[in-house]
């Protein structure tokens, strides 16, 4: 099955990051059409009919929230703080195709009747920041955002907000805090983020990759978009695949059209020759899967989270990391737990203490100082933070669920390998830390 490229359709066109080239390929026609032919409500209707859902990992439908908020919200905050391990879609969409992002944002702003947009981006995306800023400059100068007329509504204003770089700043309320110039600490809701958003005013947060679909929906119609994917989840997803595969990169596929195994073997070329697949992390923050799980369809429905399906993991942002048989699972779990312990914002004690405790136990296991009862302890701590795939959580946001499920997943499938570390008092795996160059990479980087 060929890729279904919408967001990636034009990504390899030279100079597509410049306004002239983007326009020569039909860019901003959708925005012009929206302004000419549709009311803001009609755009929301279009988004509803298309069934567009969030691609940032929650898979909630956009339209219901937009319907309640159009005309009432003051700011649109675009989440471009992509920091989840293995995720590189938004970076590429921004760096290779910034005008597609701006056009999608402008259509959303029209639908929501907001005049002020903040694109919240992490400082490590230096080139992306420059490209977004020059794209905004280009459309402002070309009058695409509107022209200031005395006595009329001011033109749309898009600001590229460079944050401080923290994984947690991608959480909705944390993102809003960073926009107010505060620490990116999530807060309890209510008051709901869109009612009490920025500076006490209503604000709505949407992922940048999600909004990139809007020009395509306008151009080709809501019914066409709804016909892609499944009935419940329409459209495509840009999958990011990295780790031990022959052809890492971005693959845009219709939701539900292929299985995880097909993505890994047919698109990404499978694991390196002479090796076998050991485990797969199927999405940002999602628990690991084994070879036996890979025949699951790539659409939220079949997954425990968010669809309530059988696949014992979460379908989130499509950031897949593949590990072959050279990987020590304690080492991989430790690497991720170090990430979570550093990135915990530290507000909620179970998350702050739990992530550090789990990291410390894994450190001593991997370092050969593990104790026989460490496995039990790991499981007990992780379960207390959040029981396996349960909605119970011991903190304000879902961060603590992510790492506790992740670790419980590793323990479910690799408890013997974990136990062996404690028994032999050393890491028994012959790890390979050498640089591995893949055959090819799927899109131009």
């Amino acid at each position, binding site marked *: 099955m060929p890729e279904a490229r919408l967001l990636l359709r034009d990504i390899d066109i030279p100079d597509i990051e410049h306004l002239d080239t983007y326009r020569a390929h039909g860019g901003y026609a959708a925005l012009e059409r929206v302004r000419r032919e549709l009311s803001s409500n009609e755009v929301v209707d279009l988004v509803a009919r298309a069934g567009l859902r969030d691609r940032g990992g929650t898979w909630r439908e956009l339209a219901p929230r937009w319907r309640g908020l159009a005309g009432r919200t003051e700011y649109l905050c675009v989440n471009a703080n992509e920091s*989840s391990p293995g995720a590189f879609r938004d970076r590429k969409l921004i760096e290779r195709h910034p005008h597609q992002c701006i056009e999608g944002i402008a259509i959303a702003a029209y639908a929501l009747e907001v005049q002020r947009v903040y694109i919240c981006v992490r400082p490590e995306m230096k080139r992306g920041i420059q490209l977004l800023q020059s794209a905004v400059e280009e459309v402002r100068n070309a009058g695409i955002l509107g022209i200031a007329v005395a006595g009329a509504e001011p033109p749309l204003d898009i600001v590229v907000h*460079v944050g401080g770089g923290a994984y947690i700043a991608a959480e909705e309320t944390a993102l809003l805090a960073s926009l107010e110039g505060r620490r990116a600490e999530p807060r309890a809701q209510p008051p709901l983020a869109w009612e009490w958003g920025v500076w006490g005013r209503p604000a709505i947060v949407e992922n940048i990759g999600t909004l990139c679909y809007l020009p395509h929906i306008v151009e080709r119609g809501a019914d066409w978009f709804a016909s892609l994917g499944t009935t419940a989840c329409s459209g495509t997803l840009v999958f990011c695949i990295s780790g031990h595969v022959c052809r890492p990169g971005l693959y845009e596929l219709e939701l539900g059209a292929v299985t995880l195994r097909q993505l890994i073997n047919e698109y990404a070329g499978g694991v390196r020759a002479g090796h076998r697949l050991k485990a797969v992390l199927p999405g940002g923050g999602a628990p690991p899967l084994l070879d036996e799980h890979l025949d699951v369809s790539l659409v939220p429905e079949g997954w425990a989270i968010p669809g309530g399906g059988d696949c014992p993991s979460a379908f989130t942002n499509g950031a897949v990391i593949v590990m072959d048989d050279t990987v020590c699972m304690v080492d991989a779990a430790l690497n991720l737990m170090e990430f979570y312990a550093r990135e915990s914002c530290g507000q909620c004690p179970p998350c702050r203490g739990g992530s550090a405790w789990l990291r410390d136990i894994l450190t001593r296991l991997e370092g050969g100082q593990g104790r026989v009862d460490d496995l039990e302890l790991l499981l007990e701590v992780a379960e207390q933070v959040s029981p396996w795939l349960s909605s119970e959580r011991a903190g304000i946001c879902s961060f603590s669920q992510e790492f506790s499920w992740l670790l419980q997943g590793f323990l479910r499938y690799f408890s013997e390998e974990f136990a062996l570390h404690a028994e032999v008092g050393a890491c028994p795996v012959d790890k390979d830390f050498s640089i591995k160059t893949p055959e090819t990479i799927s899109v131009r980087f």
Partner: protein
Amino acid sequence: MGLSTELRAECERLMQDYSQPAGALLPILNVVQNTLGHIPPDIVEEVADLVDCTSARVWEVVDFYTAFRTRVAGRCRIQVCRTLSCRLVGAEDVLAYLREYLDIGPGQVTEDGRFEIERIDCVGACATAPVMLVEGTLHQSLTREYIAHLLETL
């Protein structure tokens, strides 16, 4: 030492994008750090006055976000990604090569003060792992030859 006239003007320009001055705090700190290489502690009060908040608030923000630092170590900052996708395909080897050429490891500065090496969390360029940032610029698909060549040109 305070903010230079140009830097202050740039900060004031950034503030126009926000309805509350403190909104510009993170962008201001980024500009200060990009210009001066770090956030000098003696400008914190001036920044606080500028965006109309307390120095404590500026300090807590500087402390919270990984991007900001209050002292400069080496003149050229090399940040090697350490997160899983990079680790799987050779982040440790990248550090080993850097050590061969520069004789330093993560958290250290060369004797002449030119280079410093740090580890950094996922920067979101995992298909082209292993990757590193050099003065904020992304370098991807690293190999031993690439690193040797890059260090010669820095």
